[in-house]
C-alpha cells in the first residue's frame, strides 16, 4: 500500500471542487429491478464530475455493472433518471449516447482487421477515409501500437494485452467525453494488469476524459481512481478518494473489502468527544473512534495491520492489549505475525523488516497497541 501512495500524485480535493459545475453523469434516485421483486440498485444518487476517474468497486452482484450498463443504455432504469452532461438519457438509445465503452472480453469484432475495428465508430459517423485513417493512427499511437504492423491483423492474432489496448483505442478513437470500462483488465495476468493500470491512468490524464471504471479488484480501484464508490447490496457504501477509503472506512463492509483489516468484536460502553470506550469480548477495554455505532451497541473495531505496534512505547500508543503469537510469516520486505487478540486468532500485524527487528516465536505472549485514531468502532457487520 505504501508504494501506491507514491504513484498517486493527484489532488485529492479535485472532485469536490468541481462538483459545483454541471456534472458529467448524474444518477438521480435510480432504482433497478430485474424481476420486480428485488432491487439490484437501490435509490442511487451519484454525481460524477467532468474529467473525473470514478471507480465502481464491489463484489459480484453488488449492482456496479448494472449501473454501468444503465449509463451505456443497455439496461433501462426501473425508476429515476440518469443525466449525461445535464441531458436526461433514459430514452436515448445506446448508439446515440456517444459514450465509449471497453468491455470485459474486449468485444473486438473478429471478422474485421484491427484497422477496421478502429475505423468502425468513425465510418458509422460518416467520416471520410483520409480522416478515418488519421484518427485510427492517432488512436493506435496512443496505445503504443501504431508502428503499422498491427493494422492488417485480426484480433485473434493478438495477445490478450494487445487486444486490451485495441479495445481501449477503439473506445477512444471517436473522442467521446465519457468512457465506460467494465472490468477491462480482468482477463490479464497480474503483471500485465498492473502495467495496464498505469497506462489507462496516463491516457485518462492526458485526454481529460471522464472515466467510469467497474472492477471487483480493490487494489486496481485504489491505484487508478480519483474517487471510488464501494458498492454492496445495491447501495453505495462509501464514496471517497482512495486514501480516505482505506484510512477512514465508514462501515465494516468497506473496512473489510478495502485492503487488509483486523477485526475485534466488542460492545460500546460509552462515547466521549467521539471517542468510544469499547469492552472487548475477552473483557479488556480499549478506546476507538466512534464512527457508526452508538453507546450500548455491539461494534466491530477496525485496525489496519501496519498500524499495530508490538511491545510499543507508551508514547506511541494509547494503550495495549495482550496477544499470543500464533505464526510468523517471512515475506522479505515485511514480516507478518498472526496473533490471537481478544479471542480473534486471525489478528495480523505487519512489521517492516528493518535492521534489528525482533523475531517472535510461536506461543510467545506479547503486548500489542495502536493509536486511538487508527482504531475505528464500526457497525457490527453481518
Amino acid at each position, binding site marked *: 500500500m505504501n508504494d501506491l501512495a507514491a504513484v498517486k500524485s493527484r489532488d485529492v480535493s479535485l472532485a469536490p471542487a468541481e462538483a459545483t459545475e454541471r456534472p458529467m453523469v448524474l444518477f438521480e434516485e435510480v432504482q433497478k429491478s430485474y424481476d420486480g421483486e428485488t432491487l439490484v440498485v437501490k435509490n442511487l444518487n451519484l454525481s460524477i464530475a467532468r474529467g473525473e476517474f470514478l471507480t465502481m468497486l464491489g463484489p459480484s452482484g453488488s449492482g456496479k455493472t448494472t449501473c454501468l450498463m444503465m449509463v451505456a443504455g443497455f439496461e433501462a432504469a426501473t425508476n429515476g433518471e440518469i443525466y449525461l452532461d445535464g441531458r436526461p438519457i433514459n430514452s436515448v438509445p445506446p*448508439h446515440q*449516447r*456517444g459514450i*465509449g465503452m471497453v468491455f470485459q472480453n474486449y468485444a473486438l*469484432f473478429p*471478422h474485421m482487421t484491427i484497422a477496421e475495428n478502429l475505423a*468502425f465508430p468513425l465510418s*458509422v459517423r460518416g467520416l471520410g477515409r483520409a480522416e478515418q485513417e488519421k484518427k485510427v493512427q492517432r488512436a493506435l499511437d496512443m496505445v503504443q501500437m501504431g508502428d503499422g504492423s498491427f493494422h492488417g491483423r485480426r484480433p485473434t492474432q493478438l495477445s490478450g494485452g494487445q487486444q486490451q489496448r485495441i479495445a481501449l483505442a477503439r*473506445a477512444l478513437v471517436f473522442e467521446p467525453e465519457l468512457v465506460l470500462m467494465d472490468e477491462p483488465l480482468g482477463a490479464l495476468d497480474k503483471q500485465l494488469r498492473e502495467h495496464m493500470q498505469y497506462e489507462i491512468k496516463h491516457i485518462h490524464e492526458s485526454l481529460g476524459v471522464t472515466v467510469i471504471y467497474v472492477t471487483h479488484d480493490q487494489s486496481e480501484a485504489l491505484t487508478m481512481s480519483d474517487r471510488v464508490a464501494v458498492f454492496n447490496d445495491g447501495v453505495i457504501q462509501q464514496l471517497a478518494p482512495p486514501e480516505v477509503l482505506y484510512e477512514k472506512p465508514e462501515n465494516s463492509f468497506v473496512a473489510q473489502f478495502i485492503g487488509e483489516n483486523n477485526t475485534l468484536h466488542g460492545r460500546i460502553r460509552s462515547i466521549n468527544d467521539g471517542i468510544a470506550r469499547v469492552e472487548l469480548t475477552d473483557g479488556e477495554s480499549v478506546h476507538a473512534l466512534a464512527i457508526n455505532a452508538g453507546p450500548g451497541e455491539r461494534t466491530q473495531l477496525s485496525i489496519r495491520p501496519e498500524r499495530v505496534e508490538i511491545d510499543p512505547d507508551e508514547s506511541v500508543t494509547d494503550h495495549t492489549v495482550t496477544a499470543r503469537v500464533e505464526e510468523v510469516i517471512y515475506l522479505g520486505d515485511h514480516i507478518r505475525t498472526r496473533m490471537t487478540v481478544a479471542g480473534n486468532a486471525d489478528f495480523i500485524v505487519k512489521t517492516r523488516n528493518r535492521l534489528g527487528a525482533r523475531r517472535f516465536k510461536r506461543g510467545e505472549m506479547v503486548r500489542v497497541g495502536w493509536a486511538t485514531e487508527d482504531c475505528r468502532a464500526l457497525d457490527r457487520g453481518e
Partner: protein
Amino acid sequence: MATREQRSKAPLVAADGTPLKEALRRSQAVERRRAFALVAPLLVFILLVFAIPIVAMIWRSVYNPEIREYLPQTAAALSSWDGEDVPPEAVFQAMAADMIVGVENRTIGRAAARINREIPGARSTMMRTARNVDAWSAPYREKFLEADEDWASLEFWHILQRESRLITPTYYLLAVDYEYNAQGEIAPRPEVYQVYQSLFFRTAWMSILITGICVLLAYPISYMVATQPVRIANLLLILVLLPFWTSLLVRTSAWIVLLQQQGVINELLVWAGVIDTDGRLRMIYNRIGTVVAMTHILLPFMVLPLYSVMKTIPPSYLRAAKSLGAHPFRAWWSVYFPLTVPGLAAGCILVFILAIGYYITPALVGGDSGIFISNLIADNMQGSSAQLKLAAALATILLVAVLLVYWLFNRLVGVDKLKFG
C-alpha cells in the same frame, strides 16, 4: 558456438544413430496402424455399399452391350458399313449366323426387344425372319429383302450400327429430352415426350425456394433461441427438433389433413366467410403442398447450424457496435450477420442438397405439378416400363449437379468455413 551451428545444420539423429525423422516415423507406426484399424470397418462398408454402387450406376448409364452380345457378328460386319446404301451381303450373312445362334440359345428375343425399343415394330420383323432363317442359304441379302421390305430400311441399319457401340450417350440425351433422329443426328425429342429438362429446372428452383423460405423462418427463430437462457433455449430447441422425432409419413399426412380441400384450413376459411365453398383453395397435390411440407421437414437442418453459430457470438459484440455509434440495424448488418455466415451457408447447402434429391414428400403431396426429378428416377426403376439405364443417367446428372453446387459453394464461401454445430 561454431559447433552448435554445425550441429543444427546436420540432420538430427536419434541416440542410436538413425535419422530423427525416421525414428519418429517408426515410433508412430503403431499409432497409425491402430488409427487405420479403427476406421477400416467403416471404410470397407462405405466402399462396398456406397462407392462401388455409385460407380456401377454411372457405368450402367452409358454401358450398352446388348446388340454386341446378342448379334456379335452383325455388329462386327456393320462397323465397316458406309451407311450410303442397304448393307452388303456380308452383313446379312452375319445377321443370319447371329439369328441361328440366337434361336438356339433363345437370346434372339432379347435382341429383338432391344431393337424394338429404338424402332417400334422391329421385333416382329426380327422374330419372323429368325424363324425361317435356318432354312435359307447364301446369298442371304435377297432372301432377307424378299421376306420383309423392312430389311431394306436404311434407318433400321443405321440404328443397329449406332446401338452396336459399347458406350452410348443415348440415355443422357433422353434425360435432357434429346434423341437421335432418323438421320442419326442429335435433336430435341417431340414436345409431348419432353419432361426431364423442365423437371430438372423445377426441382432446382423449388429447392432454392424451399431453402430461401427456410432461411427466412430459421434466422429469427435461431436468434431467439440463441439469446435465451439455457433452460428456455433447450425447450425451444426441442420444439424445433420435434419434427425429427415423428415419422416422415405422419408429418406428411398431417399436412394433407391440414391443407386438403376438405381440410382444416379450407373449412376454417369457409366458416369464416373468407372464401365460399366453391372457391376452396388447392393447397396440396401441387407445388404449394410440396413447398410447405418440405420447408417444414427441412427447417431443423437450417435452424441447428444457425443456432450453433449464433450461440458462440457473445452479446457484447452487438452492444459494442451500438456503443460505438452504430444504429441497431447497422450493428446487426456489419457485426452480427457476417459472423453468422458460416452457419447460414452450412444450413443453406444442407437444405438445398437434401431438397434437390427429395423423394417421399413430393411423391405424397406433390401431385403432378409438385413432383421432383427423384420421383421420375424412381418411376424409371420400377414397373414393366422400367428403364434402369435412363434412371441411372438421370441420377448421375443429379449427382453431378449436387457436386457442382458443392464446388461452387466451396469457391464462393469455402467449405472450411462451414459450421454444422
